[in-house]
């Protein structure tokens, strides 16, 4: 996959992520500093209008192709009365297979999206800005194979007023990261 950075970042004004820590939520900043230097150097951040933090609005306004944007959803399930959590990263052109791949990986009877207040409370990130970087320790970070191999994807920064642009390799290097084939289910082609 050879794509120039410009073609995927549209009208986002990128700056090196390590130069503008104020555009990152606290847990995200911590996660970045724990990464190897050569990976951090490939992470950029862009300030955005917080009203446009949701994927569809972001992609339209800043002319970011949907397939260059990755969503991070927080999934939870329960096993023997104990809750289990995971972050799932899929391209915006796909949707997480919550009750297939994710449910089996978490080994729970039923998996669901975490309620908004739970997701926000446990991650310390703003809703609409939740990102795989800096999720609580011990959470698996399931990364769809298409995200893992991407040269650059737009993900959250933990805040609504900015986005991170990172190579898939950064997400794969996160603690707890696992590359999962078929995590994202495509919904653009017709499906019965």
């Amino acid at each position: 996959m050879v794509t120039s950075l410009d073609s995927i970042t549209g009208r986002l004004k990128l700056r090196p992520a390590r130069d503008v820590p104020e555009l990152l939520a606290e847990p995200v900043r911590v996660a970045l500093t724990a990464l190897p230097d050569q990976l951090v150097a490939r992470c950029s951040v862009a300030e955005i209008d917080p009203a446009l933090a949701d994927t569809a609005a972001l992609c339209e306004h800043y002319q970011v192709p949907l397939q260059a944007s990755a969503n991070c959803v927080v999934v939870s399930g329960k096993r023997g009365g104990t809750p289990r959590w995971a972050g799932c990263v899929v391209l915006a052109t796909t949707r997480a297979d919550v009750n297939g791949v994710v449910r089996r990986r978490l080994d729970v009877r039923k998996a669901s999206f975490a309620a908004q207040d739970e997701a926000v409370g446990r991650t310390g990130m703003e809703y609409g800005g939740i990102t795989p970087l800096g999720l609580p320790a011990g959470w698996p970070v399931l990364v769809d194979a298409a995200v893992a191999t991407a040269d650059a994807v737009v993900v959250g920064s933990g805040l609504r007023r900015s986005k991170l642009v990172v190579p898939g390799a950064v997400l794969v290097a996160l603690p707890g990261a696992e590359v999962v084939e078929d995590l994202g289910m495509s919904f653009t082609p017709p499906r019965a």
Partner: protein
Amino acid sequence: MLESLDLWVFQILYWAAVPVGIFAFIHAAFQRADAYTAADKLTKPAWLGITGGACALLLLNLVVPGSMLFYLIGLVAVLVYIVDVKPAVTEVQRGPRW
């Protein structure tokens, strides 16, 4: 008066179906799109189309006499959404119960 009682009952059923259909459509519109995939249902646009189309059929039945077949089709579509899709989509967005 009494011999037309059955007609009245049908009239009530015809009218009552419309708000139920509108409720289903509005409910479908307010769910997050990826919840439908997570619950193994058709996509959100598909269900918006189904419930929206069903509303149109239910309304059609009120204005065009003799379109009872359309009424039944619309009603079945709306009820499938309400008894099958709605609970599944709601549950997958709720997080585990404590």
